[in-house]
């Protein structure tokens, strides 16, 4: 296999994810990489960011001399409040989440399975301090849950898998995944690549995906690649 070029940068993944956010959406962005998406909302679209510690209308980080220690985001970092913002307590905040009032959340992932299962809160290691925060509430309550992540871990292990090995955050919750190599939809038939990063081939991405991947790019002839037969064509012997 030839060595493909680097995939998309974190900023490029964020920019791609931002393209899919409709004007007027109420959105929660997970701590870490997904936070970058806020910087790439296309001109002319207004979105309202929710941070689960109690703010709708979250703005960017303040200047260092304008930090208010009582105005922070869910990652405990100083933020600002945009015109039209609102503060609220935790029960109201999670009523917004659990009650289906948020249009979209984009979260990080340790693993996403072909059935939409998400693992992003625990390595399951016995010496780790258990901590879950609002991740389980978000995936069970927000109408659309998407993931932004690198396609593989630093050591090259695929994060898109047939079945999660880490403890689940939620079952069957993820609908779309933005990675440095592709945009992948979770469909009833498993993973479907709808876009492939420039310079990469479908086969190269499929080889880095630990579950069958269908080529669903516009104009693509139906092909499947991966470790096992895709379930849509599985014979019923």
């Amino acid at each position: 296999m030839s060595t493909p070029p680097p995939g998309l940068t974190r900023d490029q993944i964020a920019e791609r994810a931002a393209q899919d956010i409709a004007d007027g959406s109420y959105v929660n962005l997970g701590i870490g990489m997904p936070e970058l998406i806020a910087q790439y909302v296309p001109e002319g679209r207004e979105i309202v960011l929710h941070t689960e510690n109690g703010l709708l209308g979250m703005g960017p980080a303040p200047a260092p001399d304008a930090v208010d220690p009582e105005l922070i985001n869910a990652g405990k970092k100083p933020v600002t409040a945009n015109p039209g913002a609102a503060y609220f307590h935790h029960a109201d905040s999670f009523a917004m989440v659990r009650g289906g009032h948020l249009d979209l959340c984009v979260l990080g992932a340790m693993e996403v399975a072909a059935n939409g299962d998400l693992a992003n809160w625990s390595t399951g290691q016995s010496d780790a301090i258990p901590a879950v925060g609002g991740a389980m509430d978000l995936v069970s309550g927000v109408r659309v849950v998407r993931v932004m992540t690198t396609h593989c871990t630093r050591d090259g292990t695929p994060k898109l898998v047939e079945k999660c090995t880490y403890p689940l955050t939620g079952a069957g919750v993820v609908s779309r995944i933005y990675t440095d190599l592709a945009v992948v939809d979770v469909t009833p038939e498993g993973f479907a690549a709808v876009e492939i990063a420039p310079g990469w081939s479908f086969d190269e991405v499929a080889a880095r995906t630990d579950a069958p991947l269908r080529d669903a790019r516009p104009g693509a002839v139906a092909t499947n690649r991966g470790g096992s037969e895709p379930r849509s064509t599985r014979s019923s012997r």
Partner: protein
Amino acid sequence: MIDKRVASAAEAVAEIADGETVMIGGFGEAGSPIELVHALIDQGASDLTVISNNAGNGQVGLAALIRCGRVAKIVGSYPRSSNSTVFADDYRAGRIELELVPQGTLAERIRAGGAGIPAFYTPTGAATELADGKEQRSFDGVPHVLEHALRADWALIKAGAADWHGNLLFNKTARNFGPIMAMAAQTTVVQAATVGAPGSLDPETVVTPGIFVNRVVHIADPAQEFDLVAQGAHYP
């Protein structure tokens, strides 16, 4: 006459007894009732169960209470901190118990406790290991988990402004768990930066009505946990 003012933080927390359950407001470093928690450290009660989203920062506030060996159990959602190993050290050594609860479930269990709802079903955590051992039931084909209300003997919370009746306003995201913890405790103790006579707060803007508050302590210039941690402060 109703006047819930108490002269000092020490007086406000004096009756907290060994083995009791204490809700402590705050999310991260925002909204930590530092002066009340430090008064609790001075007071000496131990074997406490603390209900708080996090397990403290740096070497002050809740982290200091844990370091002093006063906390037997934490009920919270995210007891990891990038600036404190106090909880982690005790947890790994088996000196402190943890009940891990998803953040929204923690909030709703507290709200339910304050609202007289003994338990409720939530989709959060279904099909995860945090639902293990809990009653589960399907509604419209969606699995739900039965979660029980949380109540406490005490709540320690930080407000921006109060009046003698205990009506409260908060400051920005320091509001977090304050309003719901105030509802869910037998005795709710509030520290507020301003404390005015009845009528000093606009009834239309009151966030927590005074019926949920028992004691109000005026802490005019409260320490910010954010600043104390940045300075490397150590309590006591």
